[in-house]
């Protein structure tokens, strides 16, 4: 039975942001080592990331999104605003670390 793994976006020990140190090719087994910053979207919690994906699938229409979720337009817009502020915070944090 396949295990449904969730993507870890923060350190389980101290809660800090994680970095990618190893990348490997599934077909030829080539492994690349280094230290790569994760994209801002992948640092979002799973449910927020799913919200962003659903929003894109709805062509960025809050109206369609609200219909699909069975929620009112302002509720979905407020949720989007929340995700935007999280992305801005992540970007700010990444900017601070890189400088």
């Amino acid at each position, binding site marked *: 039975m396949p295990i449904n793994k969730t993507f870890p976006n923060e350190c389980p020990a101290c809660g800090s942001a994680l970095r990618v140190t190893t990348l490997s090719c599934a077909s030829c087994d080539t492994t690349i080592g280094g230290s790569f910053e994760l994209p801002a979207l992948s640092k979002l919690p799973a449910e927020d990331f799913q919200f962003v994906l659903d929003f894109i699938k709805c062509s960025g229409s809050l109206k369609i999104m609200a219909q699909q979720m*069975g929620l*009112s337009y*302002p*509720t979905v*817009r*407020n949720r989007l605003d929340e995700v935007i502020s999280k992305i801005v915070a992540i970007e700010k944090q990444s900017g601070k670390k890189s400088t």
Partner: protein
Amino acid sequence: MKKWLWTPFVYVAGKKALVLGWLVMGVTACLSFFSRTHFDGVLDVHVGMSRPLPLYFLEQFISWSSAVLLFYLVGRVSSDSSIRSIDVAGTLALSRWPMIFVSLISFGFPHNLDIRHIDPVWVLLSLLEVAFVVWMVALMYNAFTVSCNLKGGKATRVFILALMLSEILSKILFYLIYKPVL
């Protein structure tokens, strides 16, 4: 069920809420005509004098539109979100639905109310009406926080300010309307 009683705006807003709210306000106006209930202010309820039916509709309209105008303006100033006037108008219209019960409760008051002979039943009915007004205010708060995307202490402070200003505006408008009648 609890969510539908306190925060129905999570599910309904915009045009849908506006149509439902206007329907509710229309029913309330008709009922209040027969029970002689006056909604002469955003938060006001008074039982007494009989007036022509259109005045009861006007009372509903002024109470609602005063709140919409002030809540929208205050929301635009204090919220970072791109708020829509249709959401403010719709959710505030729907938040007046407990007033239907107030109109119904008012049937319990006698035709000739004499303030010098207060009946314990009248006190009970008045307290019941106050409870429904409190329910309406709670719904208005939720309508405001959802449609203007405000939270916490800021939402409470701004809500109180908008509520007070809208009450003052509605009172001025009612004074101007009732002045020629008095």
